[in-house]
């Protein structure tokens, strides 16, 4: 992974190319983290992938997390990898919670990295982050008609009735 100086150089170049894209850098326990503005995610990842001497061609993982009670609440993490130099770069986009009926939104990177397809669907399923321009944004692990986003920190654990034939009439919306 890039050292602290290398990370600052990347951040400097990115700020010149895409103004306002990088909001911070962290170098913690050997992990180089680039904190970016979610609106610029596509430009930042395209730059990191296409620029000579950067060449982060492989997207190892995309995952979400919920920083409640901190703000901004949601984080979408991209683990980029350069296989030639064996360097990993951790890119983190932080999203504000827009309030109950609305969902946080950001651009999908599935067009740039096809591997993000399933993983963005999982983040949508679990955290309710909507990825604009995703080819097929549906729930992936939970049932299609499920309500709520179970990996959010304020989503309760347990307490959901299991549907059997004997209790399906008492369960809400059984007739739908």
């Amino acid at each position, binding site marked *: 992974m890039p050292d602290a100086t290398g990370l600052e150089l990347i951040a400097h170049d990115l700020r010149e190319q895409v103004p306002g894209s990088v909001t911070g850098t962290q170098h*913690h*326990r*050997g*992990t180089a*983290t680039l904190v970016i503005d979610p609106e610029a995610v596509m430009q930042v990842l395209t730059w990191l992938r296409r620029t000579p001497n950067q060449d982060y*061609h*492989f*997207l*190892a*993982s995309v*995952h979400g*997390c*919920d*920083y409640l009670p901190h703000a901004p609440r949601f984080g979408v*993490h991209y*683990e980029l990898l350069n*296989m030639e130099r*064996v360097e*990993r770069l*951790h890119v983190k986009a932080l999203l504000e919670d827009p309030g109950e009926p609305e969902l946080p939104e950001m651009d999908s990177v599935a067009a740039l*990295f*096809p*591997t993000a*397809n*399933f*993983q963005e669907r*999982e983040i949508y399923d*679990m955290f309710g982050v909507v990825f604009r321009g995703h*080819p*097929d944004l549906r*729930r*992936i*692990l*939970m*049932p299609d008609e499920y309500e709520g986003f*179970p*990996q959010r*920190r304020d*989503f309760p*654990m347990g307490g959901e009735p299991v549907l059997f034939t004997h209790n399906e009439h008492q369960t809400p919306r059984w007739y739908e």
Partner: protein
Amino acid sequence: MSEPAGSVRQLATGVTAEPAGDAQTEAELMTINFGPHHPATHGVLRLLVTLRAEEVLEAIPYIGYVHTGIEKSCEDKSYWKVIPLVERMDYLAYYFNAMAFCMSVERLLDEPVPERAQYLRVIHCELNRIHSHLVWLGTSALDLGAISIFWYCFRERDKILDLFEYSSGQRMHTRYIQVGGVADDIPAGWAEKALRFTEDMEERVGQYEAILDRNEIFLQRTRDVGIVPQQRLLDLGVTGPLLRAAGNPWDLRKATPYSSYDKFDFKIPVGTVGDCYDRYRVRLAEIRESCSIVRQAIEGLPEGPHITTNRKVALPPRHELATSMEALIHHFKLVTEGFRVPPGEAYVPIESPRGEMGCFVLSDGSAKPARVHMRDPSFVNLQALREMVVGGYIADMITNLAMLDPILGGIDR
């Protein structure tokens, strides 16, 4: 291959509703459910397959049938109680799950692992890799109609489970790898047994090859089937034996050696064509390399503690509890509350039998993780299935699925 998945859905679900091409062709299309309950899906995978006669036009995976919310449950457990939960994700690679999680927590704690513990981890992980590949070989050959190899593979697999039982007390989901080391040192006589097994195993691999390598049916069903270009595999995030069969020698054990892997001499088998036959050859060669690593690790096993001596992280030895007040306090605090981890995020990838298995842990400074996410290689590799099967016969789809080696417990978590 670059057509967006939106049109894919239309094709699969709208076959009768909105015929896209001429009516004559559309009328012959058939959309069927493959799975979720089908022995050849290696779990509970459902594929919505569109067929024209025997040709696969579209295959869309539907997953989530064994989703149990393990990642959510992990947030309600202290760190050391998370280990048995994550072991149940990819249920054929339980040592690897525990290893990825423990290494992430160790990185957050900045806790070094004693060298003996690193070697013991390597020994068990490589035995687990052989075990996982044996189950894969047995069930895959079964899918192709060869039943005897299944019994042979499970015979050897049972010997590995015996070794696991001998060292940890459990046959599966052993909870052997702990934060800071391993649960216990190997018992007397274990090393000799394991050495004898590796010698035995290398001979057995030759016997498997004798059964399959010159089998006309096996060759016809696997050769030149399911070739996807290497660059496309990389774009789809595929790692592990699938990528190595396509000729890319990417192996995290060599690229970023963790847990003393740089001390061992082993090769990375790669394929040349990238078809199902290469995937089979690469995995068999990996069994041989794993045997060699196990032998080197046992022969060079260093002396020393099997777990860190930091009492804030690891339980004190049992005999100290009777004499030391300090040890009793540490024991009590660890069992009731667990240890606290400084705030931070860590993503640690390791090489599992199926590719890059990464564990992301977010700590908020308390004794429970705020988020545990497993980047499961099966989940990501499954995206490549469509590219492998579209345009081929439905029988080749079974071969491709078998050689992809998906573990649905890991996919659905």
